[in-house]
């Protein structure tokens, strides 16, 4: 499958256009129909029941199959070689963009689960964590090729148990390494102090620009990579993802967000249902788990109705994975929102497609099957909201990145290549050992006459 990733996407770049025919298409935003999707230049050119096939188009017969917009995971930690800076409470200078790993097999596995975009977040060890990176799962491309073009930059904040854990004695690194904060009070303080510092930094630049404008000699402030992202947050240019659980800290961050002028994506937000009205009023959005609970104290009040309840209160809600395995079946995670909270099929599916797109400000590009959007599509052999269906094909930008048949056909090839290389390496090791022995024997021979 590794080998085929690269081949697949090349093979289909040549076709002028692709038409997927006879499929049941869940557009998410414009209902469900049986018919075609026309893909041109990586975009959806047309979608509807009766479409003519453009001349020279590659035709994919999807009779009996279902097509949905490629799934967007709003909270993932795959495809990166480090996740948590962890050492300091304000780590805004670090960024996932610097450590993307396009060779992480988790990308391919998630792709095979219908995911086409993923929000790769910094971890939750620091009150203000690092910059995040929205990617498309373009397996076979390099780090630049993974990046989602057209969305605003992001950053991660974290509240509650995780960021304060390093302040607890007994954390293992010794008392000299205890880190502020140790309480939720301290977490708020860290964030407010950081924004206050960022404001001063912003002001120092203004002061410099003013002096320069007046023709005065001045030394420009040194660029501060920790504070620059926070300035961007205040300027509305950078999205904040906030890891949060308890209702008190949710309200806390909403106050901070109000004071410093941002509208966060609340991540996890397991007690969001308790303060749904406040979240809705603030303009913040929510990205949560379907049914996780009890893995820590702040997750004990989690309920599987959280997503539906928040959605009913008018919050844009997405369901995320935070996990390389769960990521492979977000479609059925969405189905849980039908069980717990009676969402419609479209409302449920929206939580893993158009809603995360809206949260990440990329809904003009992805998240639904509409003409003009990126041709990011997942094809299932049955109802995508059923546990009994599986993904057969996945397209990103109109290119075929996952094809189950090709995956199956390619497996013997991989196994053969692997065995071959293992044999080669073993033979070389054997030869080396033989040579080494020869050398020792030679040395022994040399020793004989002199002794």
């Amino acid at each position, binding site marked *: 499958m590794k080998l085929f990733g690269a081949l697949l996407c090349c093979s289909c770049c040549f076709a002028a256009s692709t038409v997927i025919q006879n499929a049941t298409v869940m557009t998410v935003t414009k209902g469900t129909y049986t018919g075609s999707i026309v893909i041109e230049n990586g975009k959806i050119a047309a979608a509807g029941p009766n479409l003519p096939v453009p001349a020279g188009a590659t035709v994919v017969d999807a009779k009996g199959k279902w097509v949905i917009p490629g799934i967007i995971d709003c909270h993932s930690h795959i495809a990166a070689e*480090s996740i948590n800076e962890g050492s300091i409470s304000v*780590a805004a200078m*670090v960024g996932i963009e610097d450590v993307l790993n*396009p060779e992480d097999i988790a990308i391919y596995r998630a792709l095979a689960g219908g995911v086409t975009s993923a929000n790769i977040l910094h971890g939750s060890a620091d009150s203000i964590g690092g910059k995040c990176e929205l990617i498309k799962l373009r397996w076979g491309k390099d780090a*630049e090729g993974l990046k989602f073009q057209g969305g605003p930059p992001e950053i991660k904040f974290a509240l509650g148990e995780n960021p304060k854990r390093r302040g607890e004695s007994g954390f293992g690194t010794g008392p000299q390494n205890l880190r502020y904060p140790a309480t939720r009070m301290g977490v708020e303080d860290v964030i407010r102090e950081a924004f206050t510092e960022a404001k001063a930094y912003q002001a120092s630049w203004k002061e410099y620009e003013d002096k320069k404008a007046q023709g005065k000699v001045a030394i420009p402030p040194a660029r501060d990579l920790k504070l620059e992202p926070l300035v961007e947050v205040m300027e509305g240019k950078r999205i904040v993802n906030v890891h949060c659980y308890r209702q008190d800290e949710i309200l806390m961050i909403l106050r901070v967000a109000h004071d410093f002028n941002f509208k966060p994506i609340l991540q996890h937000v397991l007690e969001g249902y308790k303060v749904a009205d406040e979240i809705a009023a603030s303009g913040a959005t929510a990205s949560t788990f379907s049914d996780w609970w009890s893995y820590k104290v702040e997750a004990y009040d989690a309920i599987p109705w959280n997503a539906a309840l928040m959605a009913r209160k008018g919050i844009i809600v997405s369901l995320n994975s935070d996990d390389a395995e769960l990521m492979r079946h977000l479609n059925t995670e969405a189905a849980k929102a039908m069980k717990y909270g009676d969402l419609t099929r479209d409302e449920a599916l929206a939580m893993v497609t158009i809603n995360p797109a809206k949260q990440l400000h990329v809904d003009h590009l992805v998240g639904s099957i509409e003409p003009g959007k990126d041709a990011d599509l997942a094809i299932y052999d049955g109802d995508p909201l059923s546990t009994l269906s599986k993904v057969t094909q996945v397209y990103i930008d109109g290119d075929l990145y996952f094809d189950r048949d090709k995956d199956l056909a390619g497996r013997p090839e991989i196994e053969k290549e692997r065995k071959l290389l293992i044999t080669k390496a073993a033979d070389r090791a054997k030869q080396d050992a033989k040579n080494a022995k020869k050398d020792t024997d030679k040395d022994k021979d040399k020793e004989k006459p002199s002794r």
Partner: protein
Amino acid sequence: MLSTKLNLPLLAILCAARAAHAAPPDAYLLHNARVVCVSSPTLERGDVVIRKGMIEAVGVDLKAPADAWVIDATGLTVYPGFIDALSTWALPGAAPPGPTARGTSAAQPAPTAPANAPPPSKGPEDRPLSATFYRAADHISPTDPVIATMRDGGFTTAVVFPTNNIFAGQGAVIDLAGDRPGSMVVAAPAGQYLSMKTNGFSSFPGSLMGTIAYIRQLYLDADHYKLAQSIYASHPQGLQRPAYDENLEGLNASPRALLPAHRAVEIDRMLHLAEQLKLKAVLYGGEEAWRWTGPLKQSGVPVLVSLKWPERPKEADPALEDPLRILEYREKAPGTPAALAKAGVRFAFFSDGLAKPADIRKSLKRALDAGLSKDDAIRALTLSPAEIYGIADRTGSIEPGKIANLTVTSGDWFDDKTKVKFTFVDGQQYDPQPEDTKKPEDAVKTTEATN
């Protein structure tokens, strides 16, 4: 005359020095050898005249200068002295550029803090794991036994770097012979050695992305430092005095940056970082550079290729089969030099901790087996490293006027039976140490000609 007067003390020193040793001749004629000039076509039967540490003439049937000691080199081959493009030879205490400097932070156990450990670093401002000001040239140990061992293996020159920090310090090009550190240094500083080390979970940087963020901040700070110093120098009154910073001084003094890049992902990452920071970069490692020749060629960034080809660790669990990705990494690494040569990417070799000249030659032969031409291999041991470090005007090939660093062998270097007959370092002849008595205390230079 004035000049004579001034030179008197110098003469005294020279006389004193000569008094300590038998005075070697400073003019030689190597006669009738195969001369591999590298910068010009090989002379099948050539002569080389050496005087005062420099190559005076290269040609066919040269007339022996009257004072020259004539060495009949019939049947011998003369190469430019080999250069190890990155090592810690003659720098006792500097960790070799081995696993500790390798990129993946996840695999590294966090250092355990000793009782008197410095307080945790809180950010870039604490200049963690940085000693940009550390100059290898000031720490050369002429008695390091590795000098004689490697000289016996044909190496006359090494580019040595401290390696045990993120910013480890400034390297120096040294010749592998000499009584005093000062006389060994050919050029310094050769550049700044960077690694992707982390500081564990309780001290910044705690992750690979933290390390990269720190590197970025330090280079920005260094630029600002220069600017601030110059503005202040011209307008000291009414401006706040910029603080002195030894690490920024050290960084600004370093003419190039050596960046670790083993896997393709790392090569890609470092090329982007170098481009972003406008660094004059040199990559070291290069095991997967064969996959990245296009971007390397385009960037013009040279590669120091490790001669320690990756292998399955001997202590690995035999039941665990490596994935194809790793198997390919190991299998194809020796193909890197050939691929780089074909693509026109400048590259040199470095010993990467290999302790025996025989092992170095064995590694080189694997590169030949993988398609590298002998000429390209010799170039990567001589002129290429000189070019990479900007000293091709004084060393790296056999040309009149260049430093007389020569390796004289019994035949083609890549033939197993070939031995180093003697070397010239700075115009002085060195015989290999007798094989049976190769002990550290014997690592002193021999000065008598053997012809």
